[in-house]
Every structure is written in structure tokens, then in C-alpha cells.
């Protein structure tokens, strides 16, 4: 009797935990939507998304987030260009080529990279990378999209490497043997058999890496220069969606159009990361 009661209580407690997480997500979502959508009382959706000026506290306020969206996209694009080839190369090396010991050391190193707090990376980037970028490209400031991309590439790399490595490792050994038996070289086997067979996992790895980059705030805020103008390339200061929220939320007057606009930016970010995660998920499950 007592035992049954215990079972019952434990079961319900676990159920409660499960429900709680769903409720939290729902509440956050509702709050975000309620606050964010209010901005459209002040500005039309087209003007908000495609407006070229972000002057939230001038009179009248100009709430165009195009520079911020482009800022995020540029930084993400730059980070992807750097981290995807290096990350995939690293994954192939770890999964296929590295001998036992090297493999362990490399995997440990990658995990360590993932453990560095983003603010520390941002700080290191600020004192080392920023002056370097400035000198190499003869710029007036090194606080540019490129600096942000490089630091973000470091952050995306562990995700890309570990998921892509898992995907490569999951390819049946027999595929590899089949290719070897036909006289394929190791590289031909990797390029023509293993990578295609692991492709869905690799796409997922890239997507999740990019997801990490889009949502990252601290490091980019510290080293991209934070100027909300439409960037024409990676060698200029720019500002991302995330950095805007982090930098301005403290000063925005609650209930002002500026405040609502920041929430609306939150919605945009939410939609982007949600789309990326869903895509990654689709590829991961296609794999299984």
C-alpha cells in the first residue's frame, strides 16, 4: 500500500517537472510575443524589418533593424566560412586519420575550447585579435565584423567538430571496407563514401554551429564595434541583433517604443534560431 503510494507520488512529481518546462517555455513565448508585437503600434512591420536607420531614442524614433539583421548575417557568414572547413577537416582527421593517442588529445582540446566562457573569448579577442586585424588590414579600428567572425568561429568549432565526428563515426565500418576492397585510397574513401554517407549529420553539425553563432552575444558585443549602420563588408564595425538587445535593454524605458522594439528583435532572433534548430533536427533524424 505504502509502496504504491510512493510510486504514485514520484510519478506525479516527475510529471510536474515535465509540465513545468513546457509551461516556462510557453510563458516566455507569450511574454515575448505580447511585448514584441506591441512595437507595431508605432511602426509598420515593413519599416521595422527593412528600415535602414536604427535611432531608437531620437524624436521621432527610427526603428529600422535592417542594419542589425545584416550585421548578424555578415558576422555569421564570416564565422561559417572560417569554422565550417576547419571544423569539418578537424572532424575527418579525428574520426579517420588520427592515431589513438592524438585522437584523445584532440578531442580533449576541442572539449576544452567549448568550455571557455564567451566573455573570456571576447576579452582575449579584444586585446589580441582586434589590434592584429587593425594592423594587417590598415584600418582605423580593429573592432570589425571580421574580428567578431573569427572569435565566433572558435565558438562554433567545438559543436561542428563533435557532431560531425559522431556522424562520421556512425557510418558503418562495412562501407569503408567495401570501398577499400574496390581499391579506393583512404582519401577516395573519405571523400566519396564516408562524407556522403555522413552528410545529413554533417549538415546538422553545421546548422547547430551556426545556431550557436547567431545567438552569441557577449563576445560579439565586445569586439565588433557596435555601430548600427548597414555594413558593406566584414572589415567595418557592425552590430548584431543580440548585441543590440544586450546593450540597450538596460536603458530602454519600460513601455516605450524602444523597449517594445527590443522585444521584437528578440522575436526575430527566436524565429531564426528556431528555424535553424528545426532544420538541424530534420537532418539528424533523417540520418537515423
Amino acid at each position: 500500500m505504502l509502496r504504491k503510494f510512493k510510486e504514485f507520488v514520484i510519478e506525479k512529481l516527475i510529471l510536474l517537472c515535465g509540465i513545468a518546462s513546457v509551461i516556462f517555455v510557453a510563458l516566455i513565448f507569450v511574454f515575448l510575443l505580447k511585448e514584441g508585437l506591441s512595437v507595431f503600434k508605432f511602426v509598420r512591420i515593413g519599416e521595422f524589418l527593412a528600415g535602414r536607420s536604427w535611432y531608437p531614442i531620437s524624436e521621432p524614433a527610427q526603428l529600422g533593424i535592417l542594419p542589425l539583421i545584416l550585421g548578424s548575417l555578415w558576422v555569421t557568414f564570416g564565422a561559417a566560412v572560417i569554422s565550417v572547413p576547419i571544423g569539418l577537416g578537424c572532424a575527418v582527421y579525428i574520426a579517420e586519420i588520427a592515431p589513438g593517442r592524438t585522437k584523445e588529445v584532440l578531442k580533449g582540446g576541442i572539449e576544452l575550447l567549448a568550455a571557455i566562457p564567451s566573455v573570456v573569448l571576447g576579452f582575449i579577442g579584444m586585446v589580441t585579435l582586434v589590434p592584429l586585424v587593425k594592423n594587417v588590414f590598415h584600418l582605423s579600428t580593429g573592432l570589425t565584423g571580421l574580428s567578431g567572425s573569427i572569435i565566433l568561429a572558435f565558438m562554433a568549432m567545438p559543436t561542428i567538430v563533435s557532431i560531425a565526428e559522431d556522424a562520421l563515426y556512425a557510418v558503418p565500418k562495412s562501407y569503408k571496407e567495401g570501398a577499400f576492397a574496390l581499391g579506393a585510397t583512404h582519401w577516395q574513401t573519405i571523400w566519396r563514401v564516408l562524407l556522403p554517407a555522413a552528410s545529413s549529420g554533417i549538415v546538422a553539425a553545421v546548422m547547430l554551429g551556426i545556431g550557436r553563432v547567431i545567438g552569441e552575444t557577449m563576445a560579439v558585443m565586445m569586439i565588433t564595434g557596435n555601430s548600427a549602420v548597414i555594413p558593406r563588408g566584414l572589415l567595418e564595425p557592425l552590430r548584431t541583433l543580440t548585441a543590440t538587445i544586450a546593450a540597450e535593454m538596460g536603458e530602454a524605458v519600460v513601455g516605450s517604443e524602444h523597449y517594445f522594439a527590443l522585444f521584437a528583435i528578440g522575436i526575430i532572433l527566436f524565429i531564426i534560431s528556431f528555424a535553424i534548430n528545426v532544420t538541424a533536427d530534420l537532418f539528424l533524424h533523417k540520418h537515423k
Partner: protein
Amino acid sequence: MVKFSVEALDIWFGKTQALKHVTMSVREKEILSVIGPSNSGKTSFLRMLNRFNEENPEFRMSGVVSMDGRDVRKIDRETLRRKIGMVFALPLPLPLSIFDNVAYGPRMHGERDNRRVAQIVERSLKQAFIWDEVKDRLHESAFKLSGGQQQRLCIGRTLAVGPEVILFDEPCSGLDPISTAKVEETMMILKKDYTIILVTNNVKQAARVGDRTAFFLSGELVELDATDKMFTAPSDKRTDDYIRGKFG
């Protein structure tokens, strides 16, 4: 004519000795069946011939394996493996069409001319006795074929690279009796042009298709003789016991 000769071969994986002092030869254009219980070293023996064991970092060896009088370790792996095709226990089509599966090897080795590729595919599939069953659906996925058809497709794929020798590693262990019969029939005909080495768990299969049979036990080559003799009057008691199904 001797195709392979193996002299005083010992091999180890880590601390485990997988083959103990094996000396034997394989003749050109014969079917040599290799039988023995699990862990007897028969697959390790097979994988010596195309240097597959060397993919295992723990592998060590002493002794010599030579093909046409040349030490296989002096032939680079890719060249060796083009000459020595291998068919595995589980049919392993790549996730491609039937045609592309067979065209894979020749294309990988640099054949760019599509007409030539098509010729090779047709010839290989005919040799593997599957052409009539698939000729009208060459561009369907290879996964739509039955297990036995997939296995013959894999034989065709192996043939497309132009080997001299085909190693079969328990090719029928996952197949039903009818498919098995077809694969065996294919082997019998391929014997005219190729040297075939068949590792099998199925003693009856060895008796059906092998010209000669080798019996391995715990890494030792116990006996190697003409199949007829081996299955009627084996010279070693252990062979007799295994063939009669007393162990293994």
C-alpha cells in the same frame, strides 16, 4: 600455377595470435574453400591476401605472403586490391542506383568515358548472373533488390574493377537457400576466369563448390587437400570431427 604462396606466416592482433605458422599455396583458377569454426583464423587468413589486416593498428606479422611470386607488402594496397576483389558477408550496396553501384569502381579509378563505363557495367552484371533480372531497372535504388540479388550485385561491382582473384568472406551467411544456390552457381562459373577463395561457415557449401578445402582450427592450418578426399577420407581426426559436426 601457384597464385598465392604463404610461407611460415604468424600474425597477431595485440597479444592474441590469430594465425600460427601457416604455410600453404593457392592455385590459379581454383576455388579454395576455407572452413573452420569462429575464431579459427580463416577470415584473418583471407584478409592477409589483400592486406586488409593492416588496417588494424594492433596487427603484427612475420612470414611472407606473395602473389604471383611477389611479396604482397611490396605491392601498394590500392593496386593489390584492384587485383583482388572482395565480397563480404552482408551484401553492401552503396546508397546509389544499381548502375552507379557497379560503375563506382571504374569511375573511381579514372574511367571518364560513359560509354566505356556502361559496357563495363553490362559485362560485369552479366558475369555475376544478375543482368537479366536488373537490366530494365538499372536506375532504381540498389536497396530495392532482394538480399541474394544485392549479393550478386556486389559480386558484379567487384568484377567491374577487373580483378584476378575474388575473395568471398562468408558470402551466403545472410542469404536464404535459393539465393545461396544462385551465388554458388555464379562462383562455379566465375572459376573459369578467376581464382576464388571462399571462407565459409557452411561445411556443405565448401563440399559443394570447393576444388580444394583448407581447414583451420585455433589459428593453425590443420589440413589442406582436394575437397573430395577431405570429405571422404580426411587425414586428421580433428578435420573428421569438424566435418561431421562434432564441434564448431
